[in-house]
């Protein structure tokens, strides 16, 4: 899972890059489901309704069968700055590939 850092809301989760079934990219804490719509983590998180976690753009569930943790290609396609991303080994995913 590619992630941007650690969740300040719960203090334990990794901020993963979650892609909904429609291709919207979001930042989602894998521990507490705190959600950011952009990589600006200075903004307060959102807490989408449980248990479906509807995507704030299209309403599709972020826990649904077509939602998934984004690949580096998907992050790049979405135009996000992949230099911010940390890979599974804890190093920059961009430099790791």
């Amino acid at each position, binding site marked *: 899972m590619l992630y941007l850092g650690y969740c300040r809301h*719960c*203090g*334990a*989760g*990794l901020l993963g890059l979650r892609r909904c079934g429609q291709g919207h990219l979001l930042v989602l804490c894998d521990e507490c*489901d705190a959600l950011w719509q952009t990589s600006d983590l200075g903004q307060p998180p959102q*807490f989408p309704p*449980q*248990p479906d976690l509807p995507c704030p753009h299209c309403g599709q569930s972020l*826990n649904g069968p077509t939602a998934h943790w984004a690949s580096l290609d998907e992050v790049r396609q979405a135009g996000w700055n992949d230099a911010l991303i940390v890979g599974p080994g804890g190093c920059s995913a961009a430099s790791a590939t």
Partner: protein
Amino acid sequence: MRPGRRSVGLTLLGFGVLLAWLVVKPMLPTGPVETGQVRPETPNAGPPASVERPDGAAEQAERPVERPIDSAAGALTELPGDVWRSPGGLLYGPGSREGHRLRHVLRHARDDPDRPGEHGVFDGDQAAIVALIDEAYARSEQGAGRVERDGPRSVVTVDLQRRVGYVGGQVGRRQGHPATRHVRLVLEGRNVITAYPLRP
């Protein structure tokens, strides 16, 4: 068939019937069985496990039943919608990438040594973990610990003043898995989003 051969054949047939009776007899019910009545069976109830005591005597004990982790264990009560209520009144329902909050919490029943950062690991099994979470919640309701509120969320951190688990993950591995006394709960009302031991 000649008479001699017929006699041998009948003898063999007699032995066969006797043998079949001896095999089938222990399987037959000893008491009356009412037609159409099915003896109630306990799900997953196998023969009781035999536990060897130190003095060598075998003691009959109930075998721990392997259940799906989102089913009842310990004293959880099932509510509609696959929601399970703990004795302390906390609710575990569907949600998370694991499909159920109880399963999500039980990620902290074991270490994840390759996980970046710290990964809190509870001591004990599912029932013990649910009890620890209840205890932390009860203490926070009595005013202990710290509660941070953020929208619908409460993040509760309570020092249970004894070891409740240890720090795992990559950081825990580097630091020799230090013990933890604190439990953190992330709640929406009484719904458990997640819970884990941590060093605050």
